[in-house]
């Protein structure tokens, strides 16, 4: 399911122009991270994907649907949006009911709903907690319930809004695992995040936003090399990239594997020298 945004402008009532002509295409199955300082327009942009916001000017297409023509409830069958604060979504007595809410709204028959719920809960490591009240779980697990409730909707596109804020290492691993599995299933995953390390390690394409515009859009390695532009929107390179830069690596690295590969090479070169 292709996402096509053309010359998107958006102003909030009250006059603030939050998006000043954004154009981009996301093809089926891509993993895209959107970074940039608070106020750059990341959330505003992403809320256009399921119709929560409609363009002041320009178009947003999800597949063959123009978002202007469909209500949010219908667009939610194509775009699953995981909000940041799980407590602003959870209201059911059991985890099962909570996770089943989305697919039921989409009109799936009961057996299909059960299957979707089972798979979503397995992916988020919630199996066994079906009859637990979500508010009896710790905040980290409530986050998993919120994620499962969107994953169960089995949408071709999944949007994660600041998924790692306030999470511990184990939870971030779980979320990264979900992203991987979704990608393997051929779904498009889009995330907004402040966590550049999470972004570099899990997403191939990075979009950097600043002042309502897209400043950079491309493969992670290229984007992360542009330190001056990143600095204008208060984005620091990921930790291992910074380490590589300090060691004068010929090109930036994104994660442990790439770092070690590069370091081994340099080591061998020195050895021979």
């Amino acid at each position, binding site marked *: 399911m292709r996402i096509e945004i053309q010359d998107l402008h958006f102003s909030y009532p009250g006059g603030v122009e939050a998006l000043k002509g954004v154009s981009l295409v996301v093809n089926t199955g891509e993993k895209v991270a959107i970074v940039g300082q608070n106020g750059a327009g990341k959330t505003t942009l992403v809320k256009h994907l399921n119709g929560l916001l409609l363009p002041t000017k320009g178009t947003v297409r999800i597949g063959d649907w123009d978002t202007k023509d469909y209500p*949010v409830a219908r667009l*939610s069958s194509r775009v699953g*949006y995981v909000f940041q604060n799980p*407590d602003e979504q959870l209201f059911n007595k059991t985890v099962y009911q909570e996770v089943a809410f989305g697919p039921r709204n989409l009109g799936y028959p009961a057996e299909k709903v059960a299957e979707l719920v089972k798979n979503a809960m397995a992916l988020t490591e919630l199996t066994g907690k079906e009859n637990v009240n979500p508010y009896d779980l710790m905040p980290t697990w409530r986050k998993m319930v919120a994620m499962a409730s969107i994953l169960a909707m089995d949408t071709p596109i999944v949007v994660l809004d600041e998924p790692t804020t306030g999470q511990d290492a184990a939870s971030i691993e779980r979320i990264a695992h979900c992203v991987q599995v979704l990608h393997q299933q051929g779904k498009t995953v889009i995330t907004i995040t402040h966590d550049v390390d999470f972004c570099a390690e899990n997403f191939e394409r990075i979009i950097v936003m600043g002042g309502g515009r897209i400043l950079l859009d491309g493969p992670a390695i290229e984007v992360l090399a542009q330190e001056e532009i990143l600095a204008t929107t208060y984005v620091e390179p990921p930790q291992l990239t910074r380490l590589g830069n300090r060691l004068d690596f010929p090109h930036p690295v994104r994660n442990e594997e790439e770092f070690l590969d590069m370091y081994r090479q340099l080591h061998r070169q020195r050895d021979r020298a």
Partner: protein
Amino acid sequence: MRERLFLYIDRDSPLHRLNPFTKLVLTFALILIAFLGPGYYLATAIFILILIPLSFWGRIWREFVSTSLRLLLPFFGFLFVMQSLFYPGGQTVLVNLWIFSVKAEGVGFAYLTATRILVVVASFLVFLLSTHPSTLMTDLARRGLPSPLIYVIVSTLQIIPQMRVKAETIIDAQRSRGLDTQGSLRKRVRALLPLVGPLVFSSLVDVEERAIAIEARAFSAKRPKTSLVEVPDSRAQMIARWVFVGIVLLAIGSRIWL
């Protein structure tokens, strides 16, 4: 809903500078006099001769007029129609409209009620437009109003608009899960729990954390509290407050004896 829950307009005026308790006493005094005092046109007199001049004195007459009209005109219209046509015991017919007749007693009653209600609304408006809730609460605290009560009133004023923001996020989140918030009445009723549930639960979580936060600021300390802001008062105003009380008693008295 407005951005904030109170009506205060920041102007530099003698009315603004008056002690808030003085204004509070005056407000209640005017209302009691309007309802209990003698004379058919007493409320009208209070409105024209006291409240309107006060609004000029407070440099808030524009907001005063526009807000009063906005709040009261529809109500007055309804009141006059209902009472003129259906006042029980009405005899004197002024004019006949189709099958209805407008009776003088009804019109008279409507006018009396309307002007009294006008005094209630207008007095509070003059008070609220010229008094910041923080100033009022600080003064009442000094006069002995218990601090938990003050905290509840002030924090409610500030938190409710924030809850509106939260409610909007919740609506967005649930719509994104396929919740249909438009359509038949049945659909909208079913949409209530997914909207109200998270609002209540997340607010309860917030309330507990906020309670911890104010405890950490020694809110329950058993010592007399001091105040950063000093609200000025004067002997003249204190005398004026007693004069207001006196006039109220006179008004009640004149009702009984005249």
